């Protein structure tokens, strides 16, 4: 910055910039989410439910980003936390009479338990947190491929338990249907906004900073006294909490919960969203989830036949998922850091340092 200004002004400018930049990186994300939701409202009520699913997916992707983004470790297992959250909310909000007949094998304390949906969602988050805390001391020692496989194994275990254990759910392979779908789009949006603020605060917390240091240099960070495993456990647990909440919201949005919803397909979907946007920034998670959902909705409508003026456009069934798969693969091939390049949104009209530049705060 070779400008012809005095040193004092430079300093104040920089300080101001350094104060405002993070605030802007949060505010802009909130604005994007509100804008997209409001924009969607203009299309009338037909798109409401799709938007609500998009926002729930956004929360899941942000949960994933809290862990993957900060630690740089891959997780194929976050849908396990989503599923226990959804399960909890399903068990706690299902109409008691319905519960008696649908879930006959339930443990007594579960068959009588019930809670208002907001409380149930919170408990779902706590269950996600506890599950994450239990498995974290083992999983968090692993890196790269091993971490991927171990988290996938966790998903496999949780999925089988939810599928077959009738003490905590329906008979094997069946679903919990008839959940209350009181949650409206406005409330879902508030949850999404709160999640983003929470993730932003986490990102600026000490454990997350230490983890990002370890992510960038796996040798130097431990050598400087960072206990990487401990920091990972903390962030993993927080991420599990958010994923559990998201699972609860999913249950209330979908109205039906069954174990086979929460397996490889859902994992693929959410990971694809994260990779599309860029795993290393919160901005990436938000953009990825929204853009992916947009493509998804567009293609779904095209499959059902979209009328533009006098012509109806149709694409063959199944091409939706093909395009989504293609998007992920092409993204990894040509822009592996995602649409955002893994960076937060910076104040517009200001030149960005080129990628790879080390920005120091002095």
């Amino acid at each position, binding site marked *: 910055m070779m400008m012809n200004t005095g040193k004092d002004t430079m300093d104040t400018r920089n300080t101001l910039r350094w104060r405002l930049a993070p605030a802007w990186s949060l505010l802009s994300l909130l604005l994007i989410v509100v804008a997209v939701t409001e924009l969607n409202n203009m299309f009338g009520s037909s798109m409401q439910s799709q938007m609500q699913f998009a926002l729930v997916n956004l929360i899941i992707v942000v949960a994933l980003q809290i862990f993957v983004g900060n630690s740089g*470790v*891959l997780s194929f297992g976050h849908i396990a936390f989503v599923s226990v959250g959804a399960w909890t909310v399903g068990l706690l909000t299902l109409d008691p009479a319905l519960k008696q007949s649908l879930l006959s094998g339930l443990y007594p304390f579960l068959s009588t338990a019930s809670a208002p949906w907001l409380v149930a969602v919170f408990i779902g988050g706590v269950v996600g947190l506890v599950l994450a805390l239990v*498995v974290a001391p*083992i*999983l968090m*020692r*692993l*890196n*790269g*491929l*091993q*971490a*991927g*496989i*171990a988290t*996938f*194994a*966790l998903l*496999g*275990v949780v999925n*089988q*338990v939810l*599928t*077959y254990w009738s003490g905590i759910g329906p008979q*094997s392979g069946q679903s919990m249907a008839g959940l209350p779908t009181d949650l409206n789009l406005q409330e879902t949006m508030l949850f999404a906004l709160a999640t983003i603020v929470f993730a932003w605060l986490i990102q600026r917390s000490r454990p997350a900073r230490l983890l990002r240091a370890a992510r960038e240099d796996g040798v130097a960070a431990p050598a400087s006294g960072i206990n990487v495993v401990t920091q990972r456990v903390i962030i993993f647990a927080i991420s599990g909490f958010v994923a559990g909440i998201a699972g609860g919201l999913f249950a209330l949005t979908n109205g039906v919960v069954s174990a086979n919803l929460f397996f*490889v*397909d859902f994992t*693929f979907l959410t*990971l*694809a969203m994260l*990779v599309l946007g860029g795993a290393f920034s919160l901005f990436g998670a938000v953009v990825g989830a929204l853009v992916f959902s947009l493509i998804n909705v567009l293609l779904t409508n095209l499959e059902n036949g979209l009328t533009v003026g006098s012509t109806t456009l149709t694409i*063959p*069934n*199944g*091409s939706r*998922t*093909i395009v989504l*798969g*293609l998007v*992920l*693969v092409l993204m*990894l*091939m*040509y822009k*592996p850091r995602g649409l955002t390049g893994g960076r937060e949104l910076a104040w517009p009209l200001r030149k960005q340092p080129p990628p790879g530049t080390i920005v120091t705060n002095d």
Partner: protein
Amino acid sequence: MNQLIQSLLDAISQGAILGLAALAIGLVFGVIRLANFAMAEIITGAGYALVLTWQWGWYVAIPTAIVAAVLLSLLMEILVFSHLRKGGPATLLIASFGLSFLIQQVYSVVFGNDVRTAPVASNLAQTWDIGSLRVQSLSIVSIVLTAIMLAILLWFLRKTSLGLQLQAAAMDFTTARLIGIPAKRVIAVSFAVSGILAAAVAFVLTVQSGAVGPTFGVNITVLALVGAVIGGIDKLVGSLVGGFLVGFATSMLSTWLPQDVSNFRDAFVFVLVIIVLAFKPAGLFIQGRGVVRT
């Protein structure tokens, strides 16, 4: 006693097939650090080839299946993975995950969601009574087929120049390139060989079920991948034995677990996997803690 021998035989044959599948994954991983989840679609593709061409005789169907598997495998490398060299194993795993999903959808559009059936080598799927022992002839066939494939592979790796180059590349790719081993050729060979192994796996699975759908190869690939990683995906022996152990354990658990918990068989296997990874992250058959190449 008889039941024990029978279950052992089943477990060994299941392990053999999973070992082959895991070897197919490990072979490619050793060279370009790709744990190819889309191996599932190579197996499925070979399965479709077998089922759809079986009416013209095995001498048409089997070569078609092998060619289809090798082509699919090479195409994946040329169209996708060769553009991803810079990513680490985790990125490559996600990419192969996405590719797997993509090809599955293509299959279901092209061949439909319903399974395609044909009595592929149905005379192999009989039961023989030897004394009081009931033996699935397919178990013997899988064991023999695996043994033959391993023998050929061993000969190829030890006695041919291409095989030696492949081994060198699997041991240390950078050094192998430095001493003049043609990288592209070695990579192509590893994909081709892994395609052939996948075709063998597809053959056994198709004889077993006679029906192929879009997700035909997914289950075995998940288990094979898991097996390869816990055995030590960096070493060919590690992948092979890891795959074998997972297959063996799965089969034994489904025979011997009491009825009311046998539903949780895969959960037990996955718990074992997590435990193994916790203590031996580099793999069971890698000496010491090993260097986890990430």
